[in-house]
């Protein structure tokens, strides 16, 4: 083996060592959480090993999951799981529709004030949403919409999250305009052009918008915390917080851990089934492309 090759091998060895060590630090906590859902309280706090004691597993089996699922409230976790999806599904659909229309208007037409409006859109990208939170709460309260999912799902229909509109705009700019013109000649009106010609070419972008909104909505805690007050309407994020609070005493920790894993499951499954789209989507808005 020549010296150069040896050197290369040595270098990639170091790189892999760093990467694997980093990977371990990054991912071990999550793996540990899976093991911990099958452990007793004592084991959780005495063993660094992610594998639970086999005897404990034989003894408790899936009890933490079953008992966690039943929760200490009057509802089972199924209610919270369903509620989460009652928010996610409309919100994702509205986000796609709202941002698609906005992007179409901005990238395919000229109108008075377009430049200014476009700069406003970019500015809202950086606007800290915390400033608008109190007035928005008062606004929805006056409309009598508190304790419904309306305040959570309606703003995206009106392009409420600039991030997604911006992402669509960036992507749509890359769709060749010849296609629109051909459709125009064939007698398509502008709306037909949008859904017959542009939407099909935008599928990758639409999918990644939908995926991101799904994840963010599944994670969202502050939104439901402010707007939802009936336990029967709580999504998983709030239900988990309740579980955290009520188990602070002498409860079995493995139930909360099991529930946390169920709460993460939709995001994890989605992520692993579409990881490529995710990572492409994550870079689409910022890097020119």
């Amino acid at each position: 083996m020549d010296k150069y090759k040896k050197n290369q091998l040595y270098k990639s060895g170091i790189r892999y060592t760093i990467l694997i060590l980093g990977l371990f630090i990054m991912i071990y906590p999550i793996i540990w959480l899976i093991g911990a859902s099958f452990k007793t309280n004592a084991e959780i706090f005495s063993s660094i090993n992610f594998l639970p004691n086999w005897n404990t597993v034989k003894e408790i089996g899936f009890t933490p999951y079953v008992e966690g699922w039943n929760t200490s409230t009057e509802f089972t976790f199924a209610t919270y799981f369903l509620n989460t999806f009652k928010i996610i599904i409309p919100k994702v659909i509205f986000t796609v529709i709202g941002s698609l229309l906005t992007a179409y208007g901005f990238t395919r037409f000229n109108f008075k004030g377009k430049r200014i409006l476009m700069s406003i859109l970019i500015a809202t990208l950086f606007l800290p949403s915390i400033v608008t939170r109190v007035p928005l709460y008062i606004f929805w309260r006056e409309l009598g919409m508190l304790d419904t999912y309306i305040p959570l799902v309606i703003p995206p229909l009106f392009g409420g999250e600039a991030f997604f509109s911006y992402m669509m705009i960036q992507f749509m700019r890359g769709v060749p305009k010849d296609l629109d013109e051909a459709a125009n000649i064939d007698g398509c009106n502008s709306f037909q052009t949008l859904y017959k010609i542009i939407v099909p070419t935008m599928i990758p972008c639409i999918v990644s918008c939908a995926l991101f909104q799904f994840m963010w909505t599944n994670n969202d805690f502050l939104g439901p915390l402010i707007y939802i007050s009936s336990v029967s309407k709580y999504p998983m994020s709030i239900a988990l917080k309740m579980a955290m609070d009520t188990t602070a005493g002498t409860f079995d920790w493995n139930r909360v851990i099991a529930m946390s894993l169920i709460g993460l499951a939709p995001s994890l499954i989605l992520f692993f089934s579409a990881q490529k789209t995710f990572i492409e989507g994550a870079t689409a808005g910022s890097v020119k492309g």
Partner: protein
Amino acid sequence: MKKKNRTGLYYITPWLIGMLLFTVYPFASSLYYSFTDFNLISSPNFIGFDNYITMFQDDLFWTSLNVTFRYVFLTVPLKLVIALSVAFVLNFKLKGINFFRTAYYIPSILGGNVAIAVLWTFLFATDGLFNQFIGIFGFEAIGWFSTEWGAMTTLVILRVWQFGSAMVIFLAALQNIPAELYEAAAIDGASKVKTFLRVTLPMLTPIIFFNFVMQLVQAFQEFNGPFLITGGGPLNSTYLLPMMIYDNAFRYFRMGYASALSWVLFLIILVFTLIIFKTSSSWVHYADEEGSAK
């Protein structure tokens, strides 16, 4: 195709309405509320600058501000440096790079979930995983949630752990740097360090700029960590401003005071963003034809 007409306006009308209704209106009315005493029961009562005066005399506000700055100045640089370093390592042509890229990205997808807050309370409990781990090397257990610096550290680690989102953006930018530039540097006999400083880093500045602003705006608004994990304690050492705003608005129903606090936070974010924008011309390098921040 690109005629000047109203069609485009029709398509952006929903966004326009949304922008006015859900951004401009609340934005303006929050400024108005900040000059009122408003508890949701009786109508807003105009009190001039009283909320701001109260705030500047409120020790808790100064503590919170101090803690917020500490949090932001610790997390943002750390997160960016780690994201860039890992992206740099991942950019080498190694087998299985996609696997690592995906794995490093996972925490930033899950990080905001309450389940991760649950995980954190276990990781950093006195007899939790982290203390057990350092115990192997003979270190004494650290009271993560009972010491002021410990609690802050857990929140900082939580945010820095989610460096994946910034990393993938850096990685894509690194892969966009034209190979000719590196070839030219190699012909000129530039060392690796020099190539990094003179080619890679300047080419990345637009993305560093973008990530920097984004991370800063987000870090100033962190709520879940302190609310769910440390409860703002101990001794308010993790009582970040967003949590103080939440408490005033939704626990004490002092809407006016909460609005004043959020305006101060907004102005702070604005000043920092403007400073970065103003200074950007001196350190952000745009390649001739690209201009990725157009």
